Each structure stands twice: as structure tokens, then as C-alpha cells.
């Protein structure tokens, strides 16, 4: 049953992403993308990563996409004329690349398919946080530094002169 759920969610993700890519306006693209991210978060949960799923919703769909919307609206780019739409000459390299990437990955992965199909193991929150704060403690500090830098940078760039 979880397998079928996985495939349905996968279909939703891909459809959402497709619509986001081919959307005519930026706001619509972002909303489609949010849908796609919700489905992705559920996939994460199915893959036994509840914390990551939660963070995906909160941080990604909740903060980052909202930031995108905010900037788009601030720059008043909503009207279609200000967004140069891609023509056919822009689409065919994209399609070609898509075909190349997907084909390559399918071939590469198919060649090394292991014999058995082991199931997924769920990682509990306790295990997760234990690993995070013991083995990757320094990484946490570094990430907080990095967020500080990003904050300072964004402030500086956004300053009114």
C-alpha cells in the first residue's frame, strides 16, 4: 500500500513541477511548486524521514517560497509583459538536456541494480537528533554562521543608498 502511495505522490510531484516550469507567470509557478513540495514532503515521510518532511514544509514551502513571492510582488513583475517568455528556440535545448540527463541516469542506475529489494528502515527523531548534535555538531555551528553571513549580505545588498 505504501508503494502505491509512493507512486501517486511521485506523479503529483512531477506534475506540479511540470506545471511550475511551463507556467506563464512567476506567481503561478511558485504556487505549483508549493504543491509539488508538499507531495515531496510526504514522500520524505514515507521514506522514514519525518523530521526532514516537517522541515521541508516549514522552511521550504513556508519560508523560501514566501520570500520568492515577496520579492516578485515587490518588484512588480506580476504582469505578463514584464516576463520574457521562452520561445521554441529556448525549449529544445532544455528538452534535449532533459532527455540526456534522464537517459544517462536510467542507464547508469539500471546497470548496477542490486539483486534483492531490501525494505526501508525508519529513522526516529531521537536517532536523528543524536547524530546531529554529536557527530555533526560543528556543522550546526557552521550553518548558523552561514545564516549570519547571509543575513548581513542581504542587508547590505538591500540597503537604500
Amino acid at each position: 500500500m505504501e508503494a502505491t502511495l509512493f507512486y501517486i505522490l511521485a506523479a503529483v510531484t512531477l506534475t506540479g513541477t511540470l506545471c511550475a516550469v511551463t507556467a506563464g507567470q512567476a506567481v503561478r509557478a511558485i504556487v505549483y511548486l508549493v504543491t509539488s513540495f508538499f507531495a515531496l514532503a510526504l514522500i520524505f515521510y514515507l521514506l522514514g524521514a519525518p523530521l526532514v518532511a516537517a522541515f521541508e514544509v516549514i522552511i521550504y514551502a513556508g519560508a523560501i517560497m514566501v520570500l520568492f513571492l515577496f520579492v516578485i510582488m515587490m518588484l512588480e513583475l506580476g504582469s505578463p509583459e514584464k516576463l520574457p517568455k521562452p520561445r521554441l528556440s529556448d525549449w529544445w535545448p532544455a528538452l534535449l538536456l532533459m532527455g540526456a540527463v534522464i537517459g544517462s541516469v536510467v542507464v547508469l542506475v539500471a546497470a548496477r541494480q542490486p539483486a534483492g529489494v531490501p525494505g526501508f528502515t525508519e529513522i526516529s527523531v531521537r536517532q536523528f537528533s543524536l547524530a546531529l548534535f554529536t557527530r555533526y555538531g560543528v556543522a550546526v555551528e557552521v550553518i548558523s554562521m552561514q545564516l549570519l553571513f547571509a543575513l548581513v549580505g542581504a542587508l547590505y545588498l538591500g540597503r537604500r543608498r
Partner: protein
Amino acid sequence: MQTYLSLMLLFPLVGGLASALLGRKLPRVLVEGIACAAVWGSFACAALAAAAYAAPETVTVAGWFASFDLDIPISLYLDPLSLSLAVMIGFVCGLIHIYAVFYMRSEEDYPRFFALLNIFVFAMLTLVLAESLPLLYLGWEGVGFCSYLLIGFWYTDKNNADAGRKAFITTRIGDTALMVALAWLFQLFGTLSVSKLNGMGFLMPGSIITALGILFLVAAMGKSAQVPLMVWLPDAMAGPTPVSAMIHAATMVTAGVYLLARMFPLIGGSATVLSAIAVTGGVTAFYGATCALAQRDLKRVLAFSTISQIGYMMLGVGAGAVTAATFHLLVHAFFKALLFLGAGCVITAMHHEQDIFKMGGLRRSLPLTFWNFLAGAACLAGLPLTGGFFSKDSILMAVWHKGGALYQFLYLLALATALITAYYAFRMVYLVFGGPGGDGHLQSGSELKVMQLVLIPLALLGLFGGLFNLPAYIGEGYLNRLFAGVAGGAPGGGSHLEEIVMQAIAGALALAGLLAAYLRYGKGRAQRLEEAGSQPSLLGSFLAHGWYFDNLYNLILIRPYRALAAVLWQRLDEGVIDDSLDRLAHALGRTGSWLGRWSTGRVSIYLISFAAGGGVILGYLAWLAL
């Protein structure tokens, strides 16, 4: 003997090097003294060697080159042929050196001149004395090289440089033939020693001997200015007169005859070769004489005369009479050098005027020159009892006695040439010395006096040269005895009566030529001078331009060569090679600029390049995994 021969070669070589290296630092008199002393020292050694001469001998001075089976020692061979030539060269060149000291008094670049003269004597003696053919070739090339430099001595005038180059290139054709012959001889016989080769002629079939002989003949044609390679000699008169006297009258141009005489045992066995040599000689003699008839320049008359007389010598060799040819060679050296030096005196006195139609009356102003010149002209014409008479006649005898239709025809041709020779010789004398006195001022000076004095020994030798080889009915010739051992040296057959008849015919022809010249240029002198001002007739210009051989060669050789050179230069060198490099460079530049258009500064371009690159790598990895 070894000392004499080594010193004979060393003196002029050292003298030449001293002049070349130190000539500008030493005082002029010292340089000139060294130059003359070197050649006279060489003559002294030759005379001593002659006194001590008993039999032909080979002297090896040193080794030169030895590798595998090619052995070329510096070995010298003394036999009557080389001995007589060496003595003659020493004497004549010595006199000419003294003459040159005074002739070139006003020349600033004298060290170069005397160095070249001495090195020339060295090369000529090497050529004459060489026993191994490469050594002979060394001398051969040496004389050619010195001749080139001396013809173009006053190189700042383009005509002189061109004349030197023409001489060098034309003789080069002969030199190539000689080199081919040398290589072939080594391949056939395994040795390059003259004495050995001369004994091995019977080993090879006739066709090979003929081919070798033809090669030697071509070499001689080039060096001795025979038809068809004679075009360089008239132009070589651009050099100073002592050079013309020494190189282009007495010594270098006789080197071809010497070569054929030296290799006579090898190539004489082939009748074809001998006929070819005789025909070349006969035709050239006739050609030279007819051209000399129509020349206006004093030195060019003498140049064509030289061509003609060497033709006689070749004719002698072709008739198998090496003694007669050598006799004529020696006497010709004397009187031709005399004529040239006399011409030099005349030219100096006339302020370097060389057109004989502008001269006249010099017998009163330059009496010494006149009498000596007259003696030389008499020898040239072959007037009875002069040296030239006896030598020319011995050649005619030998040709007549060879027998066969070809040789009879050549005999008649040679007789006709003798008539023409006498005619032009006295034409020259009458025009230059005859007639009323010239109105020009003559240059005089102490140099001219000494120059004229030098002429006297040569005149004596020329006039009394007949004593060297008196005909058989008077006494046995000295040269005949001397050359008895040399191949081809045996005197021709024929009874004494035949000889007297032939000599009478030849003498009569010479006198007839003298008479004709007297009538036309002695009595009719004023008319001739008038005629000289107008356009020459068709025949006259044909003869004056040397039967238009120069134009012929220009048409069939030089113009195609220049056209080819122009094509190769413009189309090939500049067009293909240069342009292809230029175009390659341009193409590379354009490719670079075209590639440079990739950095547009637009992020979209960079993105797609990045993505495409990533796609390619992924695809490649996938393809590997397939």
C-alpha cells in the same frame, strides 16, 4: 726533384697568401716584389728541374685523402709535357707579373690583384703537374675561380661582374662534365691516378672509352673556350689587360688542351673521340677567325684570335699529334701574351681607348711597341720562318697525314682559317699602327717604358720559337725528341718533299693574307675609317656579334630559365609557401576571434554551455556503462 717540384708550387702559394693577408699592411713595393719573386722563384725551380730531368717520374709530396678504397695523394708527375708547360708558365707569368706591376700602378686595390695572380699561378702549376686527377681538378677549379675574380676585378662596374659570372657559369658546364668523368673513372677502374689510368685503357669496351672521351672533351670545351662553350671569352676582356694576357691567352685557356693531351693514352684509342676533338677544334678555329675579322675592340680581336688558335691546338690533338699541339701551345703562349701586353701598352697610351678605328699612326709614337707587336702579329699570321709558321704547319701536316675524308676536309678548313688569320692580324696592325699620326695626346711615362721593355723577350721567343721543333728536313726537332716517350708524341709520317710543299702552301697563304690586308687597310685606310662610321653590313654584324651565339643562348636557355625562376618565385615561393603560411595564420586568428564570441557576458549563454557540458559528461558515463 721533389724539392724543386714542391717549391715550385709553394712559392706562388705563399706569395699569394702573403699578399692576401698582409698586403695592406706592407709597403707597396714589398708586396709587388714578393709577388714577382714568387713567380720567378717558381720559374727557377722549373728550370732546375728541367736541367736535372732524366726520365718521367712521379713524386708524392704528401697524402691528401684516403678512405676505404679511394686514395688521393698529393702526387706530382714530371714528364716532358708537364715540364715544358711548367717552364713556359713560369717564364711567361713572371714577365707578365713585372708588366702588371707597372700597368696597375694607379690601382689602389693591388694586394687583392697580386694575391689572385699568385694563387692563379699556383693553381695552374698544380693542374699541370698533378698526377692524381682530383689534384688536377683542384687546379682546374682554382684557375677558374681566380679567373672569375680577376675578370670581375673592377667589380663596381656591373658589366665586369656580369662578365666574370658568365665566364664562371659557362666553364662550370665543363667542370661538371669533368666531375662526372672523374666519378665514372673511379667506378670503372678503382683508381684516380693518371699514370695508372693511362695504362688501363684497353680494359674497357670502346663505347665507354668514347663516352669518357666525350666528357673530357666537354670539360676542355668549357675551359678552353671552344664551340659551343666559347661565349665567355670575348666578354672576359673586361678584366685588366695583364689578366687577359696571362689567363685568357697563355695559360688557363690551354688547360683544356693539356687535359686532353694528358689523358691521350686513355681516350686516344677511340677514333670517335679523336674525330670529335678534331671537328671541335677545326670548327672553332674557323669560327674564331671569322669573328675576329669584324671586331672593333682591340682586345676582342685578340680574344677571338685566342679562340681560333686554341682550336688549332685541339685540332692537333684530334689528329693524334700531341707534340705538334704542345709546340703550338708553347709558341702561342709567347706571341699571344706578347700581343696582349702590346695591346695593353697601346691602350694605356691612348687613355684607355680600345676601338681600333680610333687609333692610328702609333708606329711613330710608340716605336718599341710597334716592332714587338709586329713580331707577334707575324707569328700569329704564320709568316714564313717565324715560330708560329713552324708550329701551325706541324699541326697541318699531322691533320693531312691522318687521312680520311673528315681530316682532309678539316685540313682545307684549317688552311682557309690560316688565310683569314693572316688577314685579320695585319688588319689590326694597319689600323692601329698605320696611317697618319693620331691627333690625340698620348699618355707617356716611365711605366710605359718598362712595359714596352717586357715585350722584347716574348718577341724573341716568338720569332725564334721555331728552333724548338724544326721540321724533319732541317734537323730533328728538339721537341720531337723530347716527346718521343709521350703518347701521341711520335712525329707524323710523310716525306720531306710533302713537308716542303705543305709549308710552301701555308706560307703562301699567310703572305696572301698580308697582301689583302695591306690593300684594304693599308692603302684603303681612309675609306675604311669612313665606312667604320656607318652601319655595318648584315654579314659584318653577324660576325661582329660572334655568329649571334649569345643571342641564341639567351633565347633557348636564359629566357626560359628566367621565366621559370619568376614563376617559382612569385607563384610558388610567395604564392604558395608564403601565402599559405599567411592564410594559416589568418585562419587561426579568425578561429580565435570566432571562439572569442562565446564570452558574451550573458549569463544565459554561460548557463546553457554549463548545462550542455554536464549533459555530455553524463551521457558519456552512461555510454561507458552500457
